[in-house]
């Protein structure tokens, strides 16, 4: 079974530039998450989807960040006008529908550096 895949693996931008991250979850997983992980910190949830619907985007900086999952499979996270404070690793995770405790499967992440 293929794991969660993400691209690109690395990105380096100047402040003010835009960037998009792409995520392909595990087949059959209905829930998809995007996390931001600053250096030496734990992952912080930005947004998550169940199928194509946004369930919680309260931690997504809405003025510059956007995320979509139009067909309930792949997802794109976009940053408009990046800032140095956006420097972090962006992780995508997916999980299957379950009535019990949730296990998330993470991709390798995209390491973003904003100069």
């Amino acid at each position, binding site marked *: 079974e293929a794991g*969660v895949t993400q691209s690109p693996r690395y990105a380096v931008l100047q402040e003010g530039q835009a960037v998009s991250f792409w995520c392909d979850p595990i087949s059959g997983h209905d*829930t998809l*998450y995007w996390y931001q992980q600053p250096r*030496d*910190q*734990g*992952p*912080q*949830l930005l947004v*998550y989807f169940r199928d194509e619907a946004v*369930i*919680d985007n309260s931690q997504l900086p809405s003025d510059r960040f956007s995320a979509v999952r139009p067909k309930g499979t792949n997802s794109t996270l976009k940053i408009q006008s990046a800032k140095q404070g956006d420097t972090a690793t962006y*992780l995508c*995770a997916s*999980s299957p529908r379950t009535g019990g*405790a*949730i*296990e*998330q*499967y*993470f*991709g*390798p*992440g995209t390491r973003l550096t904003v100069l």
Partner: protein
Amino acid sequence: SQWGEENLQALSIQEGEDVTMNCSYKTYTTVVHWYRQDSGRGPALIILIRSNEREKRSGRLRATLDTSSQSSSLSITAAQCEDTAVYFCATDKNTGYQNFYFGKGTSLTVIP
């Protein structure tokens, strides 16, 4: 924040030693997940413990959960070099919403 304000902790031990990592959480949870993250990779679940389980074992791993003190621990017995990683605890609200809250983690280095 769901978690206490502890900074990323770093531990360094010799191969063969036992080690325990701790974390605390602020709000009610029914499940604590422990993840490990190897350098350059995403986190991977290694053990989870529910509120009706005071202790959970998996191989050389042992997790405990104390809901009265809102704390959890992860112990590794006879650590090996391949246990070198960052370890995170995480909770979800288990209310039908799947918001996960991760702690800042413990960076463990096992020296041969």
